[in-house]
């Protein structure tokens, strides 16, 4: 018996090490553009992580099927399960970064982003963190390899305050008001605080910070506090199961849902669908539309799902996070395309070249329409200094059955964000003993 199991242990390890040794073996010159996909389809965050990951995969499949890749360069990918855990994420990154033709990394988690920020700089692989990650990394002069495209937690918080201000009839009306931030007790949840503090100083509203211990299954006391202090508005900074729980507790403690505003990670179908009517009136930011009407989604349905190659269930296509996945993947692909314009069409781009592509994205309305993203998102153009490219978003509201936009496009306020970003970036540069990039470096 003992021997049997000893043998088994031996084989397990043997197979393991063998496999490990061969796994990342160096291949020949890359023929294909490789996208490592970090995802989480298990654990507390799976309900939100899954559609996101599916969107990214479907877009790649569609591009290969429709255009045969990027100017003829096929796209390959491999997914690695992180379970939203930092160390697992790092392992996935190390596992996949060595692949030939590796393009860029979208870790899908703020924690992993923090851990990878230094590593990618050393490995020369761009880090694409659309709408999350380090707010300061908008400053391309310091964060050469980070790309928080389309928004950070600071821009999000800023837009929410502006929107609430509008509702009240002017930011000055916020004076004396009370706004509670119910946040996921982690870097993700704490990132918006500096900006909110700034804004509360400016407009004289009281900011109450109520942490929710991750993953956020038990929120009774958080919402009892809300009930106690009766804030005029609640900002919900949640992710995964925390969001739906928050809405249920809000209902249970009778806090009006229409006074609740979520970040764009707290405004998707998984967050509200099993709350249903209970979430009626709840608002959240959104970077993109949802629905199956856009051309790109039609293409996906036609070329991927109808061929039975869909990654997820068909009805999931076009949901909020799925569509965000599409956008992220599209931006990655377009970055490669942009890079090819400079470094040679039909070639496989290296991480460095893709980085340049990301830094010089220029997606105007025309381009977006051509890509089938008309109406799905705002145009965006990045630069050496600005790695965000667009600071626009809209508020949408859950009517009990579906999300519907309830505001026009909002834009974060340069005047406030910029100095904060620069300051934070400088602090970071000082800690890491980095120097800001020279204009010359921007050309590279």
């Amino acid at each position, binding site marked *: 018996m003992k021997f049997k199991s000893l043998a088994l242990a031996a084989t397990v390890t043997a197979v393991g090490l063998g496999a490990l040794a061969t796994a990342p073996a160096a291949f020949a010159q890359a023929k294909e553009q490789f996208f490592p996909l970090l995802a989480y389809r298990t654990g507390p965050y*799976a309900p939100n992580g899954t559609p996101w990951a599916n969107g990214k995969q479907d877009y790649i499949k569609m591009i290969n099927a429709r255009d045969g890749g990027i100017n003829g360069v096929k796209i390959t990918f491999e997914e690695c399960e992180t379970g939203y855990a930092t160390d697992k994420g790092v392992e996935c990154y190390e596992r996949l970064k060595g692949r030939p033709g590796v393009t860029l990394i979208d870790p899908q988690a703020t924690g992993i982003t923090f851990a990878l920020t230094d590593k990618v700089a050393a490995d020369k692989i761009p880090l694409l963190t659309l709408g999350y990650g380090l707010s300061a990394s908008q400053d391309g002069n310091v964060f050469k390899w980070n790309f928080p495209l389309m928004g950070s937690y600071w821009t999000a918080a800023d837009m929410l305050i502006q929107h609430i201000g509008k509702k009240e009839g002017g930011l000055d009306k916020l004076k004396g008001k009370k706004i509670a931030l119910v946040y996921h007790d982690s870097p993700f949840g704490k990132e918006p605080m500096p900006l909110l503090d700034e804004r509360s100083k400016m407009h004289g509203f009281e900011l109450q910070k109520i942490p929710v211990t991750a993953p956020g299954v038990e929120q009774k006391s958080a919402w009892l506090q809300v009930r106690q202090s009766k804030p005029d508005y609640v900002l919900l900074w949640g992710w995964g*199961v925390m969001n739906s729980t928050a809405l249920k507790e809000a209902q249970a403690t009778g806090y009006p849902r229409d006074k609740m505003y979520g970040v764009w990670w707290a405004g998707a179908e998984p967050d509200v669908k099993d709350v249903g009517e209970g979430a009626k009136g709840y608002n959240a930011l959104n970077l993109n539309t949802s629905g199956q009407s856009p051309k790109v989604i039609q293409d996906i349905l036609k070329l991927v799902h109808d061929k039975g190659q869909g990654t997820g269930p068909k009805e999931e296509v076009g949901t909020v996070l799925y569509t965000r996945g599409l956008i992220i993947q599209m931006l990655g692909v377009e970055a490669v395309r942009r890079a090819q314009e400079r470094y040679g069409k039909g070639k496989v781009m290296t991480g460095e070249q893709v980085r340049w592509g990301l830094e010089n994205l220029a997606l105007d309305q025309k381009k977006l329409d051509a890509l089938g993203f008309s109406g799905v998102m705002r145009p965006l153009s990045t630069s050496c200094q600005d790695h965000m490219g667009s600071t626009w978003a809209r508020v949408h509201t859950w009517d009990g059955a579906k999300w519907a936009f309830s505001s026009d496009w909002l834009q974060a306020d340069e005047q406030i964000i910029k100095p904060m970003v620069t300051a934070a970036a400088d602090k970071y540069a000082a800690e890491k003993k980095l120097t800001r990039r020279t204009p010359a470096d921007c050309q590279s």
Partner: protein
Amino acid sequence: MGFFLETLFGGLMVGMLYSLIALGFVLIYKASGVFNFAQGAMVLFAALAMARFYEWFPKWFGFENKILANVLAFAGAVLVMVVVAWLIERLVLRKLVNQEHITLLMATLGITYFLEGFGQTLFGSDIYKIDIGMPKDPIFVLEGMFQGGVLINKEDLYAAAIAAVLVALLALFFQKTATGRALRAVADDHQAAQSIGIPLGRIWIIVWSVAGFVALVAGVIWGSKLGVQFSLSLVALKALPVVILGGLTSVPGAIIGGLIIGVGEKLSEIYIGPMFGGGIEIWFAYVLALVFLLFRPQGLFGEKIIDRV
């Protein structure tokens, strides 16, 4: 004052749910000397089964009636938990008889992983809904006494009621039925129980089934409050201080402990938390339990240990 009462009620309600999970721990520990870490995973597993059966059965058997669906789903889930109990006894406990506590503890941690993986493979890892028609909106009482009244959550009341009924049933089961008495005998002394011809194996299956049933009830209540999702298995960690505080071997301990922890947690978070920037309830529960232990190392109702040499 009104708000204090609300917090108190809130704490009691949450405490009741903790007690339910703690109950599972205690039952198993009493009967098989196993500190069953898998209790949380069992809650998740049972709740997943219930939630999915509720979706599937109507599809499979083609009927509409929600109540029927709920009943069948519940029955199905009970069956599942019995099977789980049976498998655990056959494949794990039986093979680990007379091992040290820590070995058994690890085994249940293994079971935890397995159940979490298996549950999500079988039933999926999305958020699922258990709808047993619990009212979601709050009611206000004592409006005369306090302005604004005292908010009470109907759902919590029902939950508490269900929990109470369950506990009563268990009490009856243990006091009145032959099996129950056998279980108590086993709890007191394995060898003795065996020597008077009580088959341990069967007893264990029964206990684990009962624990599975308790897990299911807990899962249904939590699930209908929070939705069924992986994180449900984490509530086990909330029940841990409860078991320790109440005493590993005491059913009343589990219940009283649950209430103490529930209330202590909420009051601390509301009234002390803000001074420290909040989020203290999780560790406060443990520290609370710890302080109790320093005065009664065997927990509130646990048996006293005398060193014999």
